[in-house]
């Protein structure tokens, strides 16, 4: 170690003691970070809406619709089969099956599109 200052490393540790950031900086920085995280979420949502105007971004929803359509068709077939095994379908019964299928199809499509 140094002959001039035998404990130079100790002195360095003392001289370069960590400096606490000023309270106003902490407050300002935290508020800035909070607002940019919120802004980022809003921007993300805004992007998702605006992105739908660009046909290049329609692939995923289209695929979801196709998949949803297939799922819906499968549901109709399943329900139709179930009904043929039970009683004779009335007109009201057919309407009810179709309505339920449309609602289920809508729900499945939303799921595939990533909506809640």
């Amino acid at each position, binding site marked *: 170690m140094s002959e001039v*200052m035998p404990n130079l490393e100790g*002195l360095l540790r003392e001289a370069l*003691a960590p400096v606490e950031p000023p309270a106003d*900086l902490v407050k*300002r920085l935290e508020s800035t*970070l909070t607002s940019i995280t919120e802004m980022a979420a809003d921007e993300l949502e805004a992007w998702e809406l605006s992105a739908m105007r660009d046909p290049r971004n329609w692939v995923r929803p289209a695929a979801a619709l196709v998949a949803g359509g297939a799922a819906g068709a499968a549901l109709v077939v399943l329900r139709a089969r179930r009904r043929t095994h039970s009683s004779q379908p009335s007109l009201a019964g057919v309407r009810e099956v179709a309505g339920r299928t449309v609602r289920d199809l809508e729900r499945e499509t939303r799921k595939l599109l990533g909506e809640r």
Partner: protein
Amino acid sequence: MAEQAVSQKPKAQLDAEFSDLYKAHLRDVYSYAYYRIGNHHDAEDLTEQTFLQAYRHFERAQRESDGRPLRPWLIRIAHNLAANLYRDRSRKPASPIDETTLLMAPHTTEQLVEGRDELSRVLEGVGRLPDDRREALIMRFALGMDNREIARALGRSDGATKVLIHRAIKQLEEIVGERGEGTGRTATPAGSANGSQAERSGRSGGAGDE
């Protein structure tokens, strides 16, 4: 399924993890900025810019870090921003380090007079080191970083960093020795050789003044 929920969850998680990183290392970044630049005003700006930039690139940094600590990455951002600051201003640090920390560091009464003189000489010596050596010492002694962390922050190998720190201490010994002999141990505040008094006394409530 819900793809949106999947994409939102990592964002919320990322934000929470970034918040942890911020809390854990705010003092490190501020200390680095302060010792690197030498005044509180610019150190605050640098700290703010560092965290804003870190937030923008946090996801990628996490992905590329392979679970290693992100402190060197944060300090590297601060290091690059500080370099840009000096480049933009086309000058060396105006006041490498003021004396605020001498007042903040714990001292006994007997140590105060004699100790302050020694610490002032050390701080002044640190301020006179070349940038890379000064930074390595700040990272080691102010932030307590090990060689590997410093190497990552400076973009050097572990071996080169070890040599850098060794040379920095050697050079500091020489500088401190010269000052002790040359001035009869009349220590001047760090940075007064090339710094402006106005900048030092800015936010430190006069702590940077003699």
